[in-house]
């Protein structure tokens, strides 16, 4: 009887040890491969594009900004901050494309998050960005659009078609090809 009990304790302990050992092995094998932070483009098919909410707020210089006033044009909405390194990385692309595509009816708009207007205006001036941005230190505009599309990181870029529907989003620094893909598809309205 006593022997049998001891045997059981040994067996149970051994079984637990094997299971824990297996779990430990799983930890060691999986812990090395959990970083995948490449840029992330999401595109909505025509007909399934969500309607962007009417974003309203003040610009960095204190004027009123209103997303719905851009209805009829393709809008590139970029969420950025002067503190954000990847935003600086993509800034030249946005500065260039915003001027190049203006005649095609494409409007660029920024949303400056977690920032102060002074810092942001220094950024736009040094990066030669001429389009307006929402002054959004508390992420209120992000909260508004997050009800429709996820804006989970800074920078994030949202492309909106002429009817006010979201064509797609780019999370992380946007590349030329990603942005031009979304702009090309934005021309095809539903």
């Amino acid at each position: 009887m006593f022997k049998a009990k001891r045997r059981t304790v040994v067996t149970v302990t051994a079984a637990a040890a094997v299971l824990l050992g297996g779990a430990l092995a799983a930890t060691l094998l999986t812990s090395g491969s959990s970083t995948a932070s490449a840029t992330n483009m999401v595109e909505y098919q025509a007909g399934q594009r969500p309607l962007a909410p009417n974003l309203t707020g003040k610009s960095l210089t204190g004027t009123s900004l209103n997303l719905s006033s851009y209805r009829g044009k393709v809008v590139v909405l970029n969420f950025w901050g002067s503190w954000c390194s990847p935003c600086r990385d993509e800034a030249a692309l946005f500065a260039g494309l915003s001027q190049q595509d203006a005649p095609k009816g494409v409007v660029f708009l920024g949303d400056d998050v977690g920032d102060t207007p002074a810092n942001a205006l220094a950024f736009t001036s040094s990066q030669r960005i001429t389009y307006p941005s929402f002054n959004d230190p508390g992420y209120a505009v992000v909260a508004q659009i997050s009800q429709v599309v996820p804006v989970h990181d800074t920078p994030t870029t949202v492309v909106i078609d002429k009817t006010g529907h979201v064509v797609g989003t780019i999370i992380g620094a946007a590349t030329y090809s990603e942005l031009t893909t979304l702009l090309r598809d934005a021309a095809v309205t539903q």
Partner: protein
Amino acid sequence: MTDVHAPQSQPESAAAEDEAARSFALDQTGTAEGGSGTTSPPPAANAGWLRWGWRQLTSMRTALVLLFLLALGSIPGSVLPQQGSDAGAVQQYYASHPSLAPLLNHLGLFNVFAAPWFAAIYLLLFASLVGCVVPRTFRLVGAARTPPPRAPRNLARLPHSSTYSSALPPDAAVAGAAAILGGQRFRLRRSESDAKDHWVSAEKGYLREVGNLLFHLSLLGVLLSIAAGGLFGYKADKLLVQGQSFSDTVSALDEFHPGRLVSGDDLAPFSVTLNNFTANYIDSGESRGQPSNFDASVSYTSSPGAKPGTYHIRINDPLSVDSLKVYLIGHGYAPEFKVTGADGKVAYEEATPFIPANTGTFESDGVVKVPDASLGFMGVFEPTAFSANGTLTSIFPAADAPAVSLIGYYGNLGMNDGVPQSVYQLDTSGMTKLSGSPHLLTPGQTWQLPNGKGSITFVGVKQWVSLAITYDPGQVPALVCGILALAGLLLSFFVRRRRVFVRAVPAASGAGSVVTVGGLTRSDASGGFEEEFAELAAEIASAEPGNNSELPGA
């Protein structure tokens, strides 16, 4: 899992007791219990092995071993810094233990409660409990519905017994005893009416099984609640400077730890503005410099456009909004700077959070990054600055005489190559120092940088708070289940299952009968059955005269 009955053995009355105690031992006949499952050797066949394995897993011993392992596994979680609660401390640990830290990290010891091995323990414990409790529930329900066993033959051999002679015939004597036992809410079982044998079995204390059942089900409820919290809850941190606000979106949060089934779209859309923060410190006596009060005055809205409310968040007094809680977990100073570049234009104007390096004096470190003027500053902030022997230090945590000492750099901050940087670190590898020694500024003072690189003004001091946002849908159910489990445990500890048997046989003289009352209980740890039995037996015996009067001449 638990069998709160204490084993009891009395060899001399073994035969009688075996019969009388038959279904008392219900919890030991089940395979899930420690008793029989452990004594059977491992079988040979494959299906038998599975069955044996399941029995082992669901045995009380395994559950206890797992519970012990769970406690043991939690120790590193409280001894070592954890990624989820204090990522900075983990970094510090890495710095001070460069060879040990990666090993510990591989073992998941910096994130114990999310480690697979920790999950293995609680999942096994969960399986063990479910495997034990569910079958046991059915057995307990069955046990609660079964009538008491037949009365054993020889009641005198039970642990408690007494005999008296009655003037009544056996069936009437037993009927009288049954009436008394029934009046005391015993569950009864009578001998068949046509039998020669006259007895009644009575049992009480079924509440013990109810308590047992409640305990097990509540334990299951606790586990389910915790699991629900882990799956559907989330934790987040946000640093907020006075006057700033934030909306609860993933990109606004400094740290976001979602449960397994939470996505960033599930966040409650509330927003919080920090209107003011005050920290009071004791300014004399032995505990000089100790904090006496923290008060973060906030206004908040539960969703965009909703009516705003105000609240004072204090330690252990969180803000409740949208079924989540916002705790105050830290605070510090944010010196406000205004920086102009070489062109004379303002390139930076912001209250910059500095991180306390000394939580006693609140001497704090921070950096000011002005990439658009190619300027960077490393600063040390002293809330109550005191200079001794050329060394600047802080002598009190309140901002009574604030000063900041700055080292300036000019050049490339490395912010244009797209690699995210910490806002608390300055990469000076591409920069040159503006001056050899640190420059001291008090509020309102401006440092004209050498070589016409611009200027930096120490505008003033603001404070910041660190807020922890937690959503744990399992918290309230876990508490309720915990209380119920305790109540169940107490019931099962303090209520005894006890049986009383009464058997009457015709007296040798031919008239009347000899009545034997026997009693049996299990796990009479708290005592008391002996007295209860004596009282009961006396009551049954003393009820006789009343019956006698109905039978004149007897």
